[in-house]
């Protein structure tokens, strides 16, 4: 851990660069060794990908093995692949036999375009979420805290569900935009919305929490007193708070390049996420390695860009240690807060109690897709199972696992974020990595397991928290009171306990709680690898994904689980706001 002593000397760039190279190399090495680590024969998966109904005879498998040169072992392959890269040659796909570079290049450009669309929507939604705080704050009328319920609701919307609804409503019913395909800017609109709305709400929620502190600083008071226009004050407040939030763009928006598989499928977009997933399942290593490399480079590139942007925004104060720390003013908790918490908690509690009294596994094929009624208050699913029962029985498991995973990820992120120079590389590399990749590795090594999904998500889930911790600590260390404490002889532990952690923890907690619903969904998305609880165990993420095909035919099958997820998220986020209000 490096507790910075404010000094004018620029820190060396070498540790960070070495960290990036090392993290990237470890990841690529793991991918190149995938079949050998997991013991799954690539000949079998490649043959299956080429020809679904082919009998895997020994002769055919041997033929594929010989074609691919599998007997040479992983290192010969890796060396050849690396050797070709400087020439722009990434080898040929094991499945199709076609050059890899054009495939990955096309998919990457498609995904980047989509990501930029999502980024625009994200910015818009984030702006809307913070609009009230910015408006009131710049006019010095900010008296009450916000519950953050709107942001929590939007951030909890499952992206694939949003995508399904948008495709059906705006694509099929109204015909405003193409329901699928990738044929021009019009095809971008719906997927960008599906990806951008939850991300925007998440980032907006974080920003919204940081803004009051900026408006509370002396300069804002002075500016208001001398009659500077509110727009000016708002701009400066944003400039003060944005740098703390910018690193979150990496795991939230840039990660969509490789991690938007579900949305890419629904809209039939030939993006990098789908390409990488297909290659991973077929163990088509040249494609998988190149796609991973692209994601690593993208993560590092975006990380460096974000860093530059932050330094440009904060500028000299950050370097010179002349940055006052951001501290929230005591704001009264909003009146609505208690009501929102009460209503959501009671609803959740009632749901769980009522659900626990029913049988979640009872299949009744005659009672298929029944709408809500007295007998089935939330309706039934495609197999005639009572949705209330499934929600109730799944609640504890879902919330428990998601909270545990979030807690582990947040603590890991916090610890790594405290060593920012060493962890910058891994953070950037991991932030764009889809959980499916680690899931595949874990599934291959351990076989199907209940804890595999949680492990896989933990392995990649810490990066948002590490990025956040690093960014906030950097700012905090550059503030005057730290210098004063150091001058007064404060030790590292004291600094950490009394100054650094208190500055980081509230924002970190908010971030973690806003990400809770995403964690639930990511955990469920690994089910196809045999990770996590096997069906028919009820679990909220699974309820959403297994009922997604029926979203239009029987909307209640997804509305129930989605509403429960939203309620959980609202309780968590507003609860933390209430705790904050009490704490101060």
């Amino acid at each position, binding site marked *: 851990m490096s507790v910075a002593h404010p000094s004018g000397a620029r820190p060396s760039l070498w540790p960070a660069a070495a960290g990036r190279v090392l993290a990237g190399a470890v990841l690529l090495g793991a991918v190149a060794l995938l079949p050998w680590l997991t013991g799954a024969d690539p000949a079998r*998966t490649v*043959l299956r990908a080429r020809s679904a109904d082919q009998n895997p005879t020994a002769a055919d498998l041997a033929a594929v093995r010989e074609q691919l040169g599998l007997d040479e072992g992983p290192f010969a392959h890796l060396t050849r692949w690396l050797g070709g890269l400087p020439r722009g040659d990434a080898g040929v796909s094991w499945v199709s036999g076609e050059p890899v570079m054009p495939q990955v290049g096309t998919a990457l450009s498609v995904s980047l375009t989509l990501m930029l669309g999502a980024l625009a929507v994200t910015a818009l939604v984030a702006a809307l979420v913070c609009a009230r705080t910015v408006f009131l704050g710049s006019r010095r009328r900010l008296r009450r805290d916000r519950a953050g319920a709107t942001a929590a609701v939007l951030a909890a919307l499952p992206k694939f569900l949003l995508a399904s609804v948008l495709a059906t409503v705006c694509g099929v019913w109204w015909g405003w935009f193409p329901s699928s395909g990738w044929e021009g800017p019009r095809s971008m609109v719906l997927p960008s919305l599906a990806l951008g709305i939850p991300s925007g709400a998440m980032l907006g929620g974080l920003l919204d929490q940081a803004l009051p502190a900026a408006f509370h600083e002396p300069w804002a008071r002075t500016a208001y007193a001398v009659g500077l226009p509110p727009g000016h004050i708002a701009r400066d407040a944003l400039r003060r708070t944005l740098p703390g939030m910018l690193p979150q763009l990496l795991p939230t928006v840039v990660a969509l390049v490789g991690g938007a598989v579900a949305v890419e499928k629904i809209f039939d977009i030939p993006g990098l996420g789908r390409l990488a997933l297909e290659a991973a399942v077929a163990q088509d290593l040249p494609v998988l390695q190149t796609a991973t490399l692209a994601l690593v480079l993208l993560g590092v590139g975006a990380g460096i860009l974000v860093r530059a942007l932050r330094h440009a925004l904060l500028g000299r104060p950050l370097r010179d240690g002349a940055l006052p720390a951001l501290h929230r003013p005591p704001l009264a908790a909003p009146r609505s807060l208690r009501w929102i918490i009460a209503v959501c908690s009671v609803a959740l509690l009632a749901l769980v109690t009522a659900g626990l009294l029913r049988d979640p596994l009872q299949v009744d094929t005659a009672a298929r897709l029944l709408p809500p009624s007295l007998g089935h208050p939330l309706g039934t699913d495609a197999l005639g199972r009572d949705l209330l029962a499934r929600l109730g029985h799944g609640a504890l498991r879902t919330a428990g696992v998601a909270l545990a995973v979030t807690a582990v990820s947040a603590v890991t992120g916090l610890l790594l974020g405290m060593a920012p120079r060493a962890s910058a590389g891994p953070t950037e590399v991991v932030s764009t990595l889809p959980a499916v990749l680690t899931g595949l590795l874990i599934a291959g090594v351990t076989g199907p397991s209940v804890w595999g999904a949680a492990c896989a998500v933990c392995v990649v889930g810490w990066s948002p928290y590490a990025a956040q911790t690093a960014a906030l600590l950097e700012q905090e260390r550059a503030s005057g009171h730290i210098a004063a404490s150091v001058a007064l002889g404060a030790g590292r532990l004291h600094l950490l306990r009394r100054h650094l952690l208190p500055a980081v923890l509230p924002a970190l907690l908010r971030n973690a709680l806003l990400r809770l619903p995403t964690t639930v969904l990511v955990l469920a998305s690994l089910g196809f690898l045999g990770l996590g609880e096997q069906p028919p165990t009820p679990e909220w993420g699974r309820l959403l994904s297994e009922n997604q095909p029926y979203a239009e035919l029987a909307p209640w099958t997804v509305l129930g689980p989605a509403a429960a997820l939203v309620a959980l998220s609202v309780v968590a986020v507003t609860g933390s706001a209430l705790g904050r209000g009490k704490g101060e």
Partner: protein
Amino acid sequence: MRTTPRGLIAALALTPLLAGCFAPGDSGGTGAGAGSGGRLRVALAVPPVQALSPYSNDATVLSKLSVAEGLTALDKNGTAKPALAKSWKQDDDTTWTFELRKAEFQDGTRLTAQSVVNALDHAGQARPKPRVLSDVTLTAKAEDADTVTLTTKSPDPVLPLRLASPALAVLSAKAYAEDGAVSPVGTGTGPFRITRLSGKTKAALDRFDGYWGGKAKAPGIDVSWVADGTARANALRSGEADIAEWIPTAQAKLLDNDTRHEVPSVRTDSLVLNTGGGLFTDAGLRAAAREAVDGSALVDSVFGGYADPAQGLFGPAVPWAAGKRVEVTGRAEAATTAQVKAETKGRTLRLATYTNRAELPEAATVLQQQLEKAGFTVKQDVREYTQMEADLLAGKYDALVFSRVTLLDTGDAVDYLASDFAGEGVYNIAGLKDTAVDKAIRTAAAERDTQRRQEKIMRAEAAILRTDAVVPLVHEQAVQGIATGVEGVILDPRERSLVDVDTRVG
């Protein structure tokens, strides 16, 4: 505050630059307005894996869109009819003579006996071997310009059926590259010529005016591959596609009645019991499982009505099966619930299935309840197919809900029985080693007369069902979405034909 706008401007400037990155080669089309001038817009389900090579999964695309043809084709009843060969005769057990018709390749060259020999030689040398040639060695020889003699190593009664396989399509010499790659782009003989293939997303086909069977009614086809079933249904419903194949049963109800066409499929879903190890080595328990499982409960629920209750291994898509079915006798007696409970004490039944077909996990859950009623303790294992294939073949499970195509490339059923149920079968997931079954399959394989071969196949089916190694559940139906006004789409149970000369937008 100076930097943000600059950054923003940079980001905005990047957008149009990247906006050029939509699906490659689409500059010709005018967005959603494609499909004008009577061109058919077809949404297919399985994206090409090997650039439409006939030796891969992609082969069916060539026959579905009438791009390439073989010497023969299959008619509605599954018998061989002339295609590039106008007639054939069997000279002796292993020798056949085919007379070619006058036809032209799409690259302008003529179809000759030599081009047929060339095509069949390449298919024979392809590694891995195309499935259709897995159990036969074929030698082709050009007798004169339009006569080809085919010799098989051992007698092959179904050779004409075999030749209808899209893997044995005859392409012009230009199609076969030195490195073994095969490209059907502009090299087939069918009424439609591929003009452009854009990766795994799109292809454009134009009418081939030199087709021997007359000019196609549609001027061309725009193909898009849409892997997600809901997206395919959406494309049809929003008018972005004229034909969308394989609508998932969950989406079928959302289609208008007149756009929804179901066709019995040669796919049978069954519960395969592992006779090689674990619980189901006990014939009494297998019989109990067979009694407990009721496939007809799946038809209206999981399959939404788009399936038929199982009659046996072969369903209504195999037209000769029903008339020749042999009653299954001499089955083991089912253990009662109490016996099942006593015998399985402390052991769980590992019920496996895979996520690749959306209906299977749902079916597994229904079956789980049925089996639990009969006294079993069931635990599911549901994964992506490639993730579990090795485990399945190693017998690391007790029961598998399995969806299998029963008539393979040959149009003949023996291959399926031999690979899945014979003791030496490479796909013998049931781990079945039964001398009576092996003998029945061998007898059927040796029979040359079509009628008697079918009878023997049905006798083998009865022998297999007698062991309770497999419990047929349902025969699937495929739902094809066809927009109103589109005429002449072929509803083929073998999933090999879709568009031909007569298909057109009305």
